């Protein structure tokens, strides 16, 4: 096992990215846009930040493919659950 050269992702760059996205969220939340637009933008930003944490801090980007598939396993179920409860008020 090699221990000599350990190259880590640029964690500080990820941190700055997360901080900037948080600042954008705080700004967007109070813009005079329609409620629907604000919700869509905020959810997009939150998912982007969550993805950055999972990929770089939890190192999913660098894990074996099988591990990544395992980590993604509950996501379709989570989406189905959320869509199901939303449609409760549409149908």
């Amino acid at each position: 096992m090699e221990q000599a050269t350990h190259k880590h992702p640029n964690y500080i760059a990820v941190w700055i990215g997360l901080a900037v996205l948080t600042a954008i969220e705080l700004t967007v939340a109070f813009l005079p846009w329609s409620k629907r637009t604000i919700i869509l933008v905020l959810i997009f930003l939150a998912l982007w930040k969550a993805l950055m944490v999972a990929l770089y801090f939890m190192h999913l980007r660098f894990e074996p493919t099988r591990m990544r598939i395992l980590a993604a396993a509950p996501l379709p179920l989570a989406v189905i659950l959320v869509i199901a409860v939303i449609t409760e008020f549409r149908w």
Partner: protein
Amino acid sequence: MAHPAVLEPPAEAEPGSGVYNEKLGMWVFLLSEVMFFTALIGSYIILRFGHPEAWAAPGKVLNIPVTAVNTFLLICSSVTMVKAYAGAVDGKQEALKLWLVLTVIIGATFVGIQVYEYYHLIEKAFIPSQGLYGSTFYTMTGFHGFHVTMGVLCMMFVTWKAFRGAYSATDYRGVEVIGLYWHFVDLVWIILFTIVYLI
């Protein structure tokens, strides 16, 4: 060969996933946690869509500036945690200990600020039995706060072990496993902050 960011310690690895057992176990636990928090978020959505009049506009009741600072702190704690992990992988004991201590301090500060927030909300009569808004707010943030508290306690144990020299460049499993949990708690807060405070 695995990417250097996830070099495997010399420990027994599961043949299927290719990662060592403790790490696989933590991931499986975290996947169950995804469904736990999704159930809470799903319940929140159904209640909020059904009774939009029960919720105040963002910032009317909840203190967004204080919570934004808390969100930033939790993001910072994820960086200190991953720097501790990097220190362990690189065999830098002083860096490992320093970043772990900082993570514990920042994590405990997050919990302290949440308690401060609760105290002032309760003073303003915003309590769990106040209605849908109060009950969903305290349920979601309370469960998350409980997870952070457990994370801080586990992190204190890992830090104590680090000071006793339990981790090295060839065995940093404990640091990586608690790190996965900690980053997950940060990830959940990123979602909760948006849907509970900003929307």
